């Protein structure tokens, strides 16, 4: 009975997992391999149902399930909401795009669903084993998705590189987990934090565990795979990589930092995060400056954003963690949006139509898409009144309140440099003339509507962040994290 109750509390993940199995069944019984509406809508319905359930969970007090292996409700639910929202909107913009590039296989949707189950587990993990299961379930599906366009060299290259390096980093991760178990005699995050003696074994294990996470969030110097993989993956799936998988990893990382490490060790681990954050922000932004391929630019931009997120983590305070959670929401909204518009532009001329020259004068064709891309890019650059500004403001404010003024200054400077490459896209959109003006096709309803919603939310949360911020702060003052944290 208890087990059933646990399953019930874990229902969002269960729904998605069942959805994945159903789509896989439909795939095996269907004649045609591509373009199945029933698979697509099964996927959407299961994701939407899970999203609804996890939104409901947001306001529940939360607790743990499966012998404290995973947490649910409250804070964990927020991570799930972001992940499911990202997945859902990536799939909304995918429909037309995948059809156009002739890769809308049924298996794609099953894989996305399984990857999402992995992310949901990762984002609610309260145990090293759960982290590993979640991370690997996610990663294995993503390796395959990265090579979706296997006919093209970039596609198979992306998949193979991702897999090789991913396996390599998983080795470190697993080794770190083993050492932690050796040090604490348990795999439960909270118990590790309570029972650790802070010896060499513990710190070596913790360091290797962090390496595994740094790889997934593409922090410098573990980021090398990111540009190649992002470029070789179908654009809307790249959006999924950049948002859902990164959010899941960050949420799990917050659990690890706030539970495994005792309060008094904050200065010690914070230093690592600070160094990596500085490297990530500087390198991500600087290299993004010189990219001529928009997708690659967005890949480096996503590296840079991981740096900003780590600034919030480095604070090591509830304020910092809340800021990171808010930033994840912001990042998801604007990045899915930006990749969505890029995907729409790409559809005109097929895969790889992403050089910045291709964008010349596009802003005046289908003006609504040009305006939306500008909104998303302004937001990514952190310009008010968009959500990206609030996100950046919160992480930097958290850092300053934790006396990390230098780190915040580096962050602000790096962010200032980033304006250059975001605005450059707009310069091409509006101020360059094209030799062969591209007539953009009529966009489908689904992609237009979902992008409009994302743009509206980008503005809305930029003007009225209050509700979400209050919710996040509530998790610490009385809600789920106060209950579980150390």
């Amino acid at each position, binding site marked *: 009975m208890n087990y059933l109750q646990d399953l019930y509390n874990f229902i969002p993940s269960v729904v998605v997992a069942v959805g994945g199995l159903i789509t896989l069944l439909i795939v095996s019984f269907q004649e045609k391999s591509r373009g199945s509406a029933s698979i697509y809508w099964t996927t959407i319905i299961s994701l939407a149902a899970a999203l609804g359930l996890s939104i409901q969970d947001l306001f529940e007090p939360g607790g743990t399930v499966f012998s404290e292996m995973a947490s649910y409700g409250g804070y964990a639910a927020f991570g799930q909401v972001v992940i499911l929202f990202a997945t859902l909107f990536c799939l909304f913009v995918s429909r037309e795009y995948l059809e156009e590039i002739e890769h809308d296989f049924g298996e794609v949707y099953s894989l996305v669903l399984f990857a999402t189950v992995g992310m949901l587990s990762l984002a609610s993990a309260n145990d090293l084993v759960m982290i590993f299961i979640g991370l690997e379930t996610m990663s294995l599906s993503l390796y395959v998705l990265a090579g979706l366009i296997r006919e093209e060299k970039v596609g198979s290259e992306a998949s193979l590189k991702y897999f090789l390096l991913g396996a390599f980093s998983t080795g470190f991760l697993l080794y770190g987990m083993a050492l932690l178990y050796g040090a604490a005699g348990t795999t439960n995050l909270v118990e590790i934090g309570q029972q650790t003696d802070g010896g060499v074994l513990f710190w070596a294990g913790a360091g290797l565990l962090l*390496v595994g996470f740094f790889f997934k969030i593409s922090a410098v*110097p573990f980021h090398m795979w990111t540009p*190649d993989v992002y470029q070789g993956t179908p654009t809307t799936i790249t959006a999924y990589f950049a948002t859902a998988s990164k959010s899941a990893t960050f949420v799990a990382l917050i659990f690890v930092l706030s539970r495994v490490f005792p309060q008094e060790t904050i200065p010690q681990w914070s230093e*690592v995060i600070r160094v990596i954050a500085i490297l990530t922000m500087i390198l991500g932004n600087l290299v993004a400056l010189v990219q001529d391929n928009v997708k690659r630019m967005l890949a480096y931009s996503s590296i840079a954003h991981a740096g900003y997120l780590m600034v919030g983590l480095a604070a090591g305070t509830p304020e910092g963690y809340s800021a990171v959670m808010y930033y994840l929401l912001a990042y998801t909204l604007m990045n899915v949006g930006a990749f969505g518009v890029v995907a729409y532009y790409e559809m005109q001329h097929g895969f790889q139509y992403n050089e910045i020259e291709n964008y010349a004068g596009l802003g005046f064709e289908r003006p609504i898409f040009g305006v939306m891309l500008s909104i998303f890019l302004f937001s990514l650059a952190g310009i008010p009144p968009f959500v990206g500004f609030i996100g950046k403001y919160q992480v930097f404010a958290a850092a300053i309140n934790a006396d990390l003024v230098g780190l915040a200054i580096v962050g602000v400077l790096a962010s200032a440099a980033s304006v250059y490459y975001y605005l450059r896209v707009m310069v091409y959109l509006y101020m360059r003339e094209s030799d062969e003006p591209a007539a953009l096709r009529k966009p489908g309803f689904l992609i237009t509507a979902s992008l409009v919603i994302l743009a509206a939310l980008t503005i809305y949360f930029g003007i009225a962040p*209050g509700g979400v911020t209050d919710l996040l702060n509530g998790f610490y003052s009385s809600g789920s994290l106060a209950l579980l944290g150390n």
Partner: protein
Amino acid sequence: MASTDIFVVLIITLPLAGFLLNGIMGLSSRSFREKKGFIGLVSNLAVFIPFGLSLLLFFNMTSGSEPVFVHLFNWISVGSFGVDIAYQVDQLSILMTMVVTGVGAFIHMYSIGYMKHDPGFWKFFAYLNLFIFAMLNLVLADNLLLLFLGWEGVGLCSYLLIGFWYEEMANSSAAKKAFIYNRIGDFAFLIGLFLIFKYTGTLNITEVLQSLEAMPHEVKVAVGLLFFVGATGKSAQIPLFVWLPDAMAGPTPVSALIHAATMVTSGIYLISRMSAFYVQVPEVMIVIAAVGALTAIMAATIALTQYDIKRVLAYSTVSQLGYMFLALGAGGFTAAMFHVVTHAFFKACLFLGSGSVIHTMEHAEHELHEEGKDVHFDPQDMRYMGGLRKYMPSTYKTFMISTLAIAGIPPLAGFFSKDEILVMAFNSGLGEHAGALYMALWVIGMVTALLTALYMFRLTLRTFHGSFKLPQVFDEAKGSEQYLHESPSSMTIPLWVLAVAALVGGFIGVPNFIASTFTHEAAHINLLHDWLHTVTAGHKIVLSHATEWLLMAISIGVAVGGMILGYKLFNKDRGEASDESLAERFGVMYEIWSEKYNLDEIYEGYISRPLVRFSDRVLATFDMKVLDGTVNAVGGITRLFGSLFRYLQTGVTSNYALALVVGVIIVLSLLMI
């Protein structure tokens, strides 16, 4: 939510919804732009419903009601500084809300007929709705920052609407001029906000007024002056009033709504809102009163010499606003608000009436062109008009009522409000603080009252009385009388509504002494005073009843004298000859008046051109050589590093793995050493 909250939210958001609907639909669909009936209906409802709701709110309030605060959401929260999107409904803000939505509603209705043939119909109504939204934010805001947002919002709408017919260069320039002059005032306002925040730590109006002792006296003076400079921009006073006459380039309903009835009174509203603050800085009050009185007489003299009927009204507006500032400076905050209300009625009516006249003159010109006659004339120039009362009876009657009201003929609206202002000035003249100066200002006010009656009768009589001049000026225009016609009822109904308001609106502020003379006890027949006494501070009247009667008699005498003089000079086609004889009699002075004191040329020659020259020679060089040089160098170096780092990305997987190992070493060494 209490019902009050819902009402307030609706009052604020309906105009916004109207703006968004018409704006977005109009932008995205060409066929929508042709659905003028629907567009007009939506935007009219978006103002009429808030008007109805504000009336309901008003009737649920008493003069003793506590202010109601409606908190929508937290807008900005930075450290200890927080600003909410929150509204304050009290006696003062509900009064302004009723004026804005009431006058606004009838001007919206009028615009349907006036703009019927304009291709930008949808855009016009979207802008009008946006204006109402911004104006309501201004008057209902419970904090100065939100008020400032509305303040900037109305400035933006004013800019957009003055330049509504932007294809003509003159209109665009007028729009820019208005915007830039307003920006000068806004800048001062903003610095005032900073000072207030620095000393009180809040921008909430109630809290600011409660923590005034935190500000040293010099700071108060500075803030008072800075806010007043802001007010001179928006409310067109010396030295920033030159934009308002040019703002008449916009469509006439805009002139009526924004540049006569509502937006230009926001400076007066601001100072009344802050009245508890202003009474503590009497030296600033003197400045306000003096600037107001001087603006009043200056603009009145210019109005006497202009031929463009809208320009006469524009200068008249500047002059009337000057009266309001005179009242504020004399401690008569209620008197100023009273004049805001009555002025909104009769000036909106006058502008709409002038619009009706211009409409028919344009029609006549158009018809003449249809006949193939090459007649070109300015449809706003009174020298081509005359005798229009025969053809446009409703316009004439409403125009005449409003003229009598603004001239201060009892018992019309303008009489009571203007009389109260002059009483307050005289009252301050008897006070111990700079009494002589206030007395002088009172005299200026009286002279201006005479001038007001004079220029208004000149305008009305030259337009509506005598004979129609157009056929006399152009031989080809013979018989053009047949094209003159009354405007449609969607235009005349608002005229009549406003005229009736101008007729009886003064009774909300009948002076108390009229009753107490007969009853020999304190009377409360002045409804407006009763209504506003809890929300505005102000000076007490120290005059005896006899003095007050005497002052009233004087002001009646002046108004009637001006009226008779005007009638003698300008009735029955004597206008042209009288203008010439006036020019002769006043010689150089008349020239200065008709040249508008050369203010534009002075600003151009002594401020704007030297500034441009300085920028061009010094700042531009500095910018290009030093600033751009630095910026480019930083950018170049940054890009250089970017290209260097780029080479790390070799594409070879084993190199990537090596980087990963380096990372492991970094992490572990940082953690374990």
